[in-house]
């Protein structure tokens, strides 16, 4: 009976293995290339799956692109050249940090703009509450004094 459970456990483990991560056996010529490879596949987005990087995707295109990244690094390309290679084929989409262009400036400056709007609203609310706290006119004060002294 116990053996059956162990067997079921093993089966479960084996069957779930493919979902543990997309890791294929790559032959790295040296440690530097290995480190650069992992950095690059973490910073490039899988074109098929909208929000997974190349490192985390099981999609066929991600496998092909990982192999391509390694091939380019082995060929002696710099990180910037690999990113340029991907950009030429897949556009801004593939870069998790899109470049500064006419199309992407809003993406970069938008959050800053929203923060400025928030700050100005906060500031104006603060200003109006200060005004009401200290905003008694001379006649108001006189009125108040009259009421209090009554």
């Amino acid at each position, binding site marked *: 009976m116990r053996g059956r459970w162990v067997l079921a456990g093993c089966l479960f483990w084996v069957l779930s293995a493919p979902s543990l991560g997309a890791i294929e056996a790559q032959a790295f010529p040296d440690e530097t290339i290995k480190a650069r490879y992992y950095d690059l596949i973490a910073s490039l987005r899988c*074109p098929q799956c909208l929000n997974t990087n190349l490192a985390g995707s099981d999609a066929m295109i991600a496998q*092909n*692109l990982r192999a391509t990244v390694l091939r380019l690094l082995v060929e002696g390309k710099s990180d910037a050249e690999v990113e340029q290679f991907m950009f030429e*084929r*897949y*556009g801004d989409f593939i870069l998790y940090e899109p470049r500064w262009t006419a199309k992407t400036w809003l993406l970069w400056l938008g959050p800053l703009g929203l923060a400025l709007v928030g700050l100005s609203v906060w500031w104006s609310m603060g200003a109006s509450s200060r005004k009401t706290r200290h905003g008694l006119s001379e006649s108001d004060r006189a009125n108040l004094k009259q009421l209090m002294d009554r």
Partner: protein
Amino acid sequence: MAKQSVLIPAFVFAGIVVLLWFGFQLSDPHLLPSQKLNDPVPDFELPSLTAVGETLNAADLTGEISLLNVWATWCPSCIAEHGELTRIFETTGLRIIGVNYNDDSDAARAWLKRWGDPYAFHIVDEHGTLAIDLGVYGAPETFVVDAGGIIRYRHVGVVTQKVFEETFAPLIQNLKDAS
């Protein structure tokens, strides 16, 4: 003043609703803009699927307007698309060139035997290198390539009769008129 500050969050909320309403309708996020439009088909040197032993290159794509169709046996939508490609070839005589993508060549030949072969020839792209140069990220994808070998249009997903008649046919007519 008090009345105004009550309205500010309402305006902000309305602004966000409008932004998201249009933002989400803007386009299908799965459709990446093509980087290769109006560029020549990237150069390649790959074997032919059916003429075993022969190699093909970008020059084989010139001479007439063609559809360059990326397909694979592991792609179920490609079977759905196959009928329409056959219909296009039979009714218009348009040259259709296959890119057999990330596939097993024996399986691909068996697939063509089973479903028919309206293609002029097929490029074997076993490791997806040509596909990557084209910016392909799935199958099926179809490019319209003009007689000079320049990419004029890219369609991601299945080419249906509607897509062909509404998008491809006018475009091809324009290309024919221009030449």
